[in-house]
């Protein structure tokens, strides 16, 4: 049985594109090879609209909109690249780099880090803001994985994958504001938590915050592409 779906046409960066009515601007842009940077978005997980890197301009509105949750509309004129957006994206990246201790040279994810890649793509050369240098713990209690809070950007992908896909909801966020931190169970050590050892959180982590202990010193690429397939299998399609 097929249900009729309305198709909309819109313009992204001057290119005419068509989209199903339930698609987001981000989906359509990616389909058309238009790059919009994202960190919290991951195909297969619910959207939270938190990293603010995917903000785009829409003609006729002074406000900016997160492409990941912005539904397409007929005749919409979207701009994904402008001096203003580039400036905002760079500053947001600066805020991320200055928030914790992101030292690429000694990071397990060096070369495989989404934060690093996006910073390069946006031409971020230096950070104007003072580094906050917080003292954060590294949790090595798990027999296979480790959590280095110094590298965490609070994208909550681990929280979502654990709750939505694995169904265990071992991860969540404690505290608020600048004091937020990801935790397992009642802020217990990861190793003695109710973790199912499935490793999905490590695969979806965009930085070196969650990593496989066996990958220290060797390249540590991550494979989050399993998610959409897993969802498809689950839906029985």
């Amino acid at each position, binding site marked *: 049985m097929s249900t009729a779906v309305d198709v909309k046409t819109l313009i992204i960066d001057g290119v005419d594109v068509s989209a199903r009515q339930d698609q987001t601007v981000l989906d359509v842009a990616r389909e058309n090879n238009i790059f919009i940077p994202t960190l919290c978005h991951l195909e297969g997980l619910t959207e939270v609209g938190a990293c603010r890197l995917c903000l785009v301009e829409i003609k006729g509105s002074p406000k900016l909109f997160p492409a990941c949750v912005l539904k397409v509309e007929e005749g919409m004129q979207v701009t994904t690249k402008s001096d203003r957006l580039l400036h905002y994206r760079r500053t*947001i990246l600066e805020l991320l780099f200055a*928030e914790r201790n992101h030292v690429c040279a000694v990071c397990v994810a060096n070369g495989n880090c989404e934060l690093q890649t996006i910073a390069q793509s946006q031409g971020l050369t230096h950070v104007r803001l003072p580094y906050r240098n917080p003292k954060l713990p590294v949790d090595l209690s798990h027999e296979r994985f480790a959590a280095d809070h110094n590298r965490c950007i609070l994208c909550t992908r681990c929280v979502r994958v654990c709750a939505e896909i694995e169904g265990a909801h071992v991860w969540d966020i404690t505290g608020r*504001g600048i004091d937020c931190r990801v935790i397992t169970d009642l802020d217990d050590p990861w190793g003695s938590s109710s973790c199912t050892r499935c490793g999905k959180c490590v695969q979806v982590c965009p930085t070196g915050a969650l990593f496989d202990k066996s990958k220290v010193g060797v390249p540590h690429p991550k494979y989050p592409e399993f998610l959409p397939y897993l969802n498809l299998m689950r839906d029985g399609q």
Partner: protein
Amino acid sequence: MTSEELQQIAEGVRLEHENYDYEVNVCMGAGCLAQHSDQFKNALAKEAEASGKRCHVRSAGCQGLCAAGPLALVEPSKTLYGHLHESDAKEVIESLGEKPVERLHIQLEDYFKGQRHVVLENCGHIDPEKIDEYIGCGGYAALLKVLTEMDPAAVIDQIAKSGLRGRGGGGYPTGLKWGTVAKALGSPKYIICNGDEGDPGAFMDRSVLEGDPQRVIEGMSIAAYAVGASKGYIYVRAEYPLAVSRFTASLREARRRGFLGNNICGTPFNFDIEIRLGAGAFVCGEETALIASIEGKRGTPRPRPPYPAVSGLWNCPTLINNVETFANVAPILRHGAEWFAGMGTERSKGTKVFALTGKITNTGLVEIPMGMSLREIIFSIGGGVPDGHKFKAVQTGGPSGGCLPEEHLDLNISYDALIGAGSMMGSGGMIVMDDTSCMVNVARFFVEFCMTESCGKCIPCRAGTAQMYGLLTKICNGEATHQDLDLLIDLCDVVKNTSLCGLGQTAPNPVLSTLRYFRDEYLEHIDNHRCPAGVCACSANDAKPQERTKERVEVEA
């Protein structure tokens, strides 16, 4: 409940009044209660009985002038007494029918003259825990009329025509919001009353919830009928224990009288309200965060659209209005939309309650028609700045608002005028500052507030406010450079335009507005390392203030 029965109750209340020659309304608001107004009331009741005078002593709500508490209002002479103590009870009773007790008498004609009470009409005149007294003042007549004579569309039409706009800060047209929820597909629908009065320096909602809770229940019920909801929640701060207990008691009373529950007033309309406690998170004033909190989750906002009107509580269509907005509903339906629209300005109708605090002679609650100038509020009603100090700025809109200087005092209060001047209406806090306040320090105070109240979900607000706070601290300490100031301004722009919710988007407002009107104070901290008001730490380290001032003059010339 039929209209005859309602009239009967009102008549009963009127006859009750006739039993007495005098009525003394003793304020039992949180402010007066803290100053032991309950003890005074008990003593007064005893004295009244002993005197043999036909006098009724009533526990009433807030009278507005909280700083002069405990307060009591004597009817019918309308004599207001303040700073009352147990030992004054005898004198007060003796003076009934005679000359007022000079020592305790508060004579502030100017304070009351310019005010117009709609929301606060019953506050301080009725016993908030007695539903019949509310009915005696015309309460629930609007609900009865709505349920028996009007269809939902007509109710929404009245609210729309009245020009009422959301009193929580944003000023979204209430009629439009109701219409959207009414049209939204999906059921059930929910009504939420936002009583999470998080703006520090604002206590209008607390006073209404404590002083006239039935008015809010009636407003919510009318809204429920208009949009087709059968369940409501009121979200009240846990920091307001008195408001919580009064409102809980009022819900029971309303159920007892049949204004909540099934088949209200003999019609098929069903509606009930549940109270939910906040737990100390300013961000829960944001509607999507508030919804998350009612659902028992961390109070983090989510991107809109979808708006709560379409997908709110448990993804159902939800109407969220603030306490003061709901408090305006019953009077509008009782007196008609034209009556309400007759007050205020072109685009801001009705009245607004403000909490007037800070360096001002008469602190307290005031309700004024929209369009009144700031000068009138601060200098006529508020009595100006005390102790011979000079007015410097007035802060409106809480942490999302801004500081307006003397040259804006003739600004007429309206949503749009305040935004145009770089501030906002907010929920109604109005904090007056004099020359002893440093505007950089004030800006830092608000940014610190936003930093600690940020939920941490989106990066611009989470880390941006922390960086802004660091830069402002540097300026306050006299250690900042012009480069730091430029960086601060840049960060303000980024945080304002890229944050997820209203908290982040407005967090830079206090900085931007003080930069706009008090830039010289920032420069004084940076160039001369001194705090003109003598508040910041840098002024203590200032070795040669005179010389530095001279340098500064030369630079400017």
